[in-house]
């Protein structure tokens, strides 16, 4: 055999990962097909709630070409509606968690005072706020607030942790170079917190994406990919519902992938990957 796997060859490693991933996905599709077929054959439904992969992909193709089967709104408008809420919630969380986290990390008294608040509020599942937020902020802004809560806490705790983990030798070095407390904060504390911030962003984006879909399933925004799934299920168009679920999976993968890539780039740029 001319082909032999070489652990020390970058392309061999890449090819190996690629081949295994493809096989893994094919097996996943097959399991899906098997389960959905068994349910369709053995249970007594007019239309099975578990669409087969074939039905789902046909529906996805139709959704992509002709929009949803009832109102004919385009796939992109459904996706964009979720994405825009997601981005707004994320930005809001970032804008608030950044200063609050940095100050909580830097000033012990603030940390001591606010830690009980964080510990009480953090374990509450973000989606538990949805019913209240929808009443207070209306459907769209309510969903944004759910995303905000989901992303805010991972960001905050990571930033606070990052400020505390700062190398005290760097603070000493800055002091002996004449830096004031304010200058140390801006020129040493903030940059050295960046990798922790990026870690918070990675975790937060994953949680946030789950939050937006869940919030849309719950409430009556009448827009967004989460609502699309609910809308199709209410209409017994389960194949379209599964097309929506595939879109959710792909977008979730893309979001975390982008965050991962951005985090790597920034860490390298900051010289903090080593």
């Amino acid at each position, binding site marked *: 055999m001319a082909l032999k796997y070489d652990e020390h060859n970058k392309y061999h490693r890449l090819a190996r990962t690629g081949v295994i991933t493809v096989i893994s996905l094919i097996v996943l599709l097959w399991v899906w097909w098997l389960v959905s077929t068994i349910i369709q054959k053995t249970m007594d439904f007019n239309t099975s709630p578990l669409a087969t992969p074939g039905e789902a992909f046909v529906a996805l193709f139709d959704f992509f070409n002709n929009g949803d089967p009832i109102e004919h709104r385009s796939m992109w408008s459904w996706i964009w509606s979720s994405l825009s809420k997601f981005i707004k919630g994320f930005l809001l969380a970032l804008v608030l968690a950044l200063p609050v986290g940095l100050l909580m990390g830097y000033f012990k008294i603030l940390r001591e005072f606010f830690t009980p608040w964080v510990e009480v509020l953090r374990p509450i599942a973000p989606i538990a706020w949805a019913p209240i937020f929808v009443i207070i902020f209306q459907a769209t802004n309510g969903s944004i607030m759910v995303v905000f809560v989901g992303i805010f806490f991972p960001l905050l705790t990571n930033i606070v942790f990052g400020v505390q983990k700062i190398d005290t030798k760097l603070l000493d*070095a*800055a002091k002996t*170079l004449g830096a004031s407390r304010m*200058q140390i904060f801006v*020129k040493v504390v903030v940059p050295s917190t*960046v990798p922790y911030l990026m870690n918070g962003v990675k975790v937060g984006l994953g949680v946030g994406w789950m939050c937006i879909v869940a919030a849309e399933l719950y409430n009556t925004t009448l827009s967004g990919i989460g609502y699309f799934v609910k809308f199709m299920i209410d209409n017994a168009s389960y194949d379209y519902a599964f097309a929506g679920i595939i879109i959710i999976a792909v977008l979730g993968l893309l979001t975390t992938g982008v965050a991962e890539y951005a985090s790597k780039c920034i860490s390298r740029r900051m010289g903090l990957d*080593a």
Partner: protein
Amino acid sequence: MSEEIVILGKKYSSKDRVRADRTDKLYEDIPEGETLLKIEDLNVTYRTDNSTTVAVDNISFDIKKGELLSIVGPSGCGKSTILRCIGGLLQPTSGKITIGDKECTTAGSDRGMVFQDFALFPWRSVRRNIEFGLEIAGVPKEERRERSTRYLKAMGLEEYADHRIHELSGGMKQRVGIARAMIMHPAVILMDEPFGALDAQTRNILQHSLVEVLKNSHRTIIFVTHSVDEAIYLSDRILVLSKRPATIHNILEVPGERPRERAAPEYAELRRKILDYLESQNTIF
């Protein structure tokens, strides 16, 4: 942002063109070889919940302008503690540290520091690490550039100016650390086992580089080390400390101009004397 710089508790506006590198001018009236830094009755006592430990026990000594004073002593005797007090990074329990006639209570750019584990800013390039202090002092960009170029050259770092810190070897990192402290022209440079994290060969090369740099620009240096050979190779005087709580055992003059021959027979007796004392103070056996 940094319109003011503080030198020994006095505030100067950068408009006065009193720049960090002119700090030494404040001590210009002190002639070379006269007392620059005075440590009087320095005591450091650590307190924990149920015990107190005396780390440094009423130490007094002087540093003369332009000299290199080494501090040696058994491991854990409080050498670094003394240095951190002088640097203003640690508040002594009692005692007084004065430069000229000004008392030092907090850290400032008049006392530069070089750390054993380099303590460089990993998100800054080599050049921007060296320029950090000047940036803090509000020195304009072109001037920073010009001055950092001089120090990059002096430390043999020119071609690494735009490199990140993690791309450098240990020896290169400490060259950056030394340049970063020197560029501020502090009254005294405090070196806390600066070559302790380097391998023996790199250490020799850096010791030699330090001697070369000092030939061209006179500096006052306090150098903490656990290597007697290093102390003899570099110092004008060696301060020998006892085991904890640290007291001064002896202050020894090292004769001869730098650069010195390594392991020269004329230093054998001095070397033996210090090593014997350190061995007698060793608490492990």
